[in-house]
């Protein structure tokens, strides 16, 4: 069996950043396994701009952003096997993959970075009633057809879900000549970034139906119409509120799911909220020597944060391979009132870095609140947030001095602004 020091599963933005960081930390034997025919992952079909504001201080298209990293991968001489799909990984980091070039290969990896990204929730997972004709796609699949295959998959389009890909595809389909009749969102607020709501819907006069869902799909071979209904507070459709649209296409942007089949096979503990691996401050999963970054860990809204996370995973992997890392993180980091999750979920109190950045998301939109940190049950820090949206990942950075000596837990929570118990330290 072949042995490799570091195998990175996935050559998208997370995997490439991890590889670059690990190489810069001196790891020579690196293999990226990429299922596509080139590196770049989903960025390759995201031809709109807006990528790289944080990383490069400029707005790039997805392929341009990816190219900057693909170039580095090449210049650093990092080995990439394309058209390679990992079929299995076990808890000993034994990896089985297949590719046209190498056939079926079994590898023994000393260290693994998981960077498989995420997939879109399909229709079946949300159980939209009606028939099953052609013309129902996830927004990402439609994006691929339009941007990579030069095929406009519909002419009269409705979109369910106001996630970012859905919003971007509303604009994209419109620009390509299709008519987008509307976007329905189950929640009373949008799940996309505010800038996308403005630039992709408002600017094109595409109506957004909040608190609505698709309650019927008709059509034999091809979609012929859909029906939307308003929903009540329990998100159940309200009879009598039906509106029908004659469309040939329904696009779905109803959530992203981290792609963790391999992680599950390897016995890695997954978090019920993020649906990604439970990790410590080094982004190490519950299987030693296996790290995770990017959308396989938790779904991001900005690629810049994916890149930063990838760098961190790559550096951690290098540490693991050269000096070793502490095992069994003992202190849980938990999401309190108002938050859906916090990452990392565990920390090693004896190996704290100079600064520790926590990522989190709110469960529902919040105005004028405090994002507060409790150490062993005591409030140690809070930052003011005029607006917090589920669609926008929040980060809070803690200094080593602030959390030193933590024993029981770190807990993040949302507080009403009036309950400001400590000096406001808003960034």
């Amino acid at each position: 069996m072949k042995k490799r020091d570091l195998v990175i599963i996935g050559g998208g933005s997370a995997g490439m950043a991890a590889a670059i960081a690990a190489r810069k930390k001196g790891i020579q034997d690196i293999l990226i396994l990429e299922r596509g025919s080139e590196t770049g992952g989903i960025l390759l079909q995201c031809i709109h701009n807006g990528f790289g504001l944080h990383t490069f201080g400029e707005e790039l298209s997805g392929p341009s952003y990816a190219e900057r990293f693909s170039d580095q991968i090449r210049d650093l001489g990092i080995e990439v096997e394309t058209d390679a799909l990992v079929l299995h990984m076990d808890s000993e980091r034994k990896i089985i993959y297949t590719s046209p070039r190498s056939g079926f290969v079994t590898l023994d990896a000393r260290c693994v970075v998981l960077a498989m990204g995420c997939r879109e929730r399909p229709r079946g997972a949300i159980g939209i009633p009606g028939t099953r004709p052609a013309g129902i796609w996830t927004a990402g699949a439609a994006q691929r057809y339009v941007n990579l295959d030069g095929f406009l998959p519909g002419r009269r389009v409705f979109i369910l879900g106001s996630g970012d890909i859905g919003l971007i595809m509303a604009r994209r389909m419109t620009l390509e000549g299709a008519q987008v009749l509307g976007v329905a969102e189950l929640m009373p607020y949008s799940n996309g970034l505010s800038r996308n709501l403005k630039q992709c819907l408002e600017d094109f006069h595409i109506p957004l139906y909040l608190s609505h869902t698709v309650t019927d799909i008709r059509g034999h071979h091809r979609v012929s119409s859909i029906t939307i209904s308003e929903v009540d507070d329990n998100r159940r459709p309200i009879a009598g509120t039906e509106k029908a649209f004659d469309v040939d296409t329904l696009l779905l942007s109803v959530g992203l799911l981290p792609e963790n089949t391999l992680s599950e096979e390897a016995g890695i503990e997954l978090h019920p909220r993020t649906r990604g691996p439970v990790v410590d401050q080094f982004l190490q999963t519950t299987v030693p020597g296996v790290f995770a970054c990017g959308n396989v860990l938790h779904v991001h809204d900005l690629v810049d944060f994916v890149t930063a996370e990838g760098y961190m995973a790559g550096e951690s992997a290098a540490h693991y391979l050269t000096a070793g890392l502490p095992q069994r993180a003992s202190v849980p980091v938990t999401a309190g009132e108002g938050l859906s999750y916090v990452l990392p979920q565990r920390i090693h109190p004896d190996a704290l870095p100079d600064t520790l950045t926590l990522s989190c998301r709110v469960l529902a939109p919040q105005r004028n609140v405090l994002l507060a940190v409790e150490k062993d049950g005591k409030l140690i820090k809070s930052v003011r947030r005029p607006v917090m949206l589920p669609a926008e990942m929040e980060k809070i950075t803690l200094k080593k001095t602030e959390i030193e000596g933590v024993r029981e837990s770190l807990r993040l929570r949302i507080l009403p602004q009036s309950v400001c118990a400590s000096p406001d330290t808003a960034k």
Partner: protein
Amino acid sequence: MYDILIIGAGICGTFIARDLSRYELKVALLDREDDIACGATMANSAIVHSGHDPEPGTLKARFNLEGSRMYEEICRQLGTVFRRCGAFVASASDEEDAVLDQLFARAQKRAIPSRILSRSEALQDEPHLADGVRRVLDLPTTAIITPWEIAIALAEEAVLNQTELLLSHTVTAIQKEQNGFLVTAQTGDGRQRMLRSRFVVDAAGVYADRIYAMAASDVPFAITPKRGEYYVIDREEHPLVSRVIYPVPSAKGKGVLAVPTIHGNLLIGPSSDPIEDKEDVGTTPWGLDYVQQQISKTVRDIPFHKVIRSFAGLRPSGSTHDFIVEEARDVPGLFLAAAIESPGLTAAPAISHYITEELIGSRIDLRPKKEYTKRQPPTPFHQLSPAQKNEWIRKNPVYGHMVCRCEHITEGEILEAIHRPVGARTIKGVKKRCRPGMGRCQGGFCEPLVAEILCRETDVTMEELFYMQDNVQKDIPGERRDNR
């Protein structure tokens, strides 16, 4: 002039076509859809029932029992999957216990292997039986199959033996002539075709009564579509149930079942709603709610959060409450395989044998062909050892290119599905034959790749592949796109 024209390429039509293809006859198999097995054959519980259930004296009882004894050998010959997983019928009340005893007695009388197990005995094999389950009837000969795989295999073998396959042909009229029938069909591209045949077999599923009505002034039966809705649950490391779990049947039918599938998914359903529209295969919130509520009586802990798909099928339910398998009384030469609702899949080979050998055989001389070509099953790539797989990939690198990452389907397997006899021409056709898109992402990643391969290999455009001619404005003004 055909000797026999079979209308409907579902499980009955394809069995009949294959069985007739053994003889020196000119046979055509016709269907309105663009592939084999697009109706009830595609959307059912995929079970070979042991035959314990149908009322004594019915055709259902006879053909179910006969069919269940034929399947294993048929699947072996065709090279299709067959797994004898067994079944439990679970009772949860005094009344149900009484019915269970009747079913047991019936099974014994029909020489179907069976026994009654106590709750604690049953739990050893099926730990997820619901709390209310008191006793079960164990039916170890019950099996699971992939119905459309069998129908496609049968159609392949029929075509290999000179059966003519007429897909996208919708029958619009049937005229009785001196020595046969004149059948008018509308083709997918809008042409009208006149087909002459000495005999006609009506295996048209929910449309069997309409087909009959084209040939006769009076139709002695009616077919009501009975809609059955199902959930498909993602594969799991440890399947929830290892055998079929039936509730005790009621007047409404077999009830809502939990069925392990050949490919490791769990099927929950069906509901049972008589409807009028013969086309309405739409799922409904109430139908699926009913399924969830009913299954809780027999199986607990069903992971409904892992549902990857729901679907509905229409069972052709007959007004006579039994199969109608006969030569039409007032239309000599028209043979009926009508009202083939549950247990129709199990019964199909026996129905076909009866129609072919006894009904048609009594009207026409069945001379066996000298040479009969057997179907070669597709490469069982999944079952090869790693070394064998490497050998395959070396010879043919397309087998190293994974197209479907959920179900691990290679480009090589997809090419084979397209280029076999009765090859796939649609996305669904590829999915039926080798499964890309059946996994947890439901084609989100692989569909564009499959579409690309289909366009390349069968010389169609994306617009054609996605039925964009039917009801989609063809061109965008001022724009010309090259979609190949």
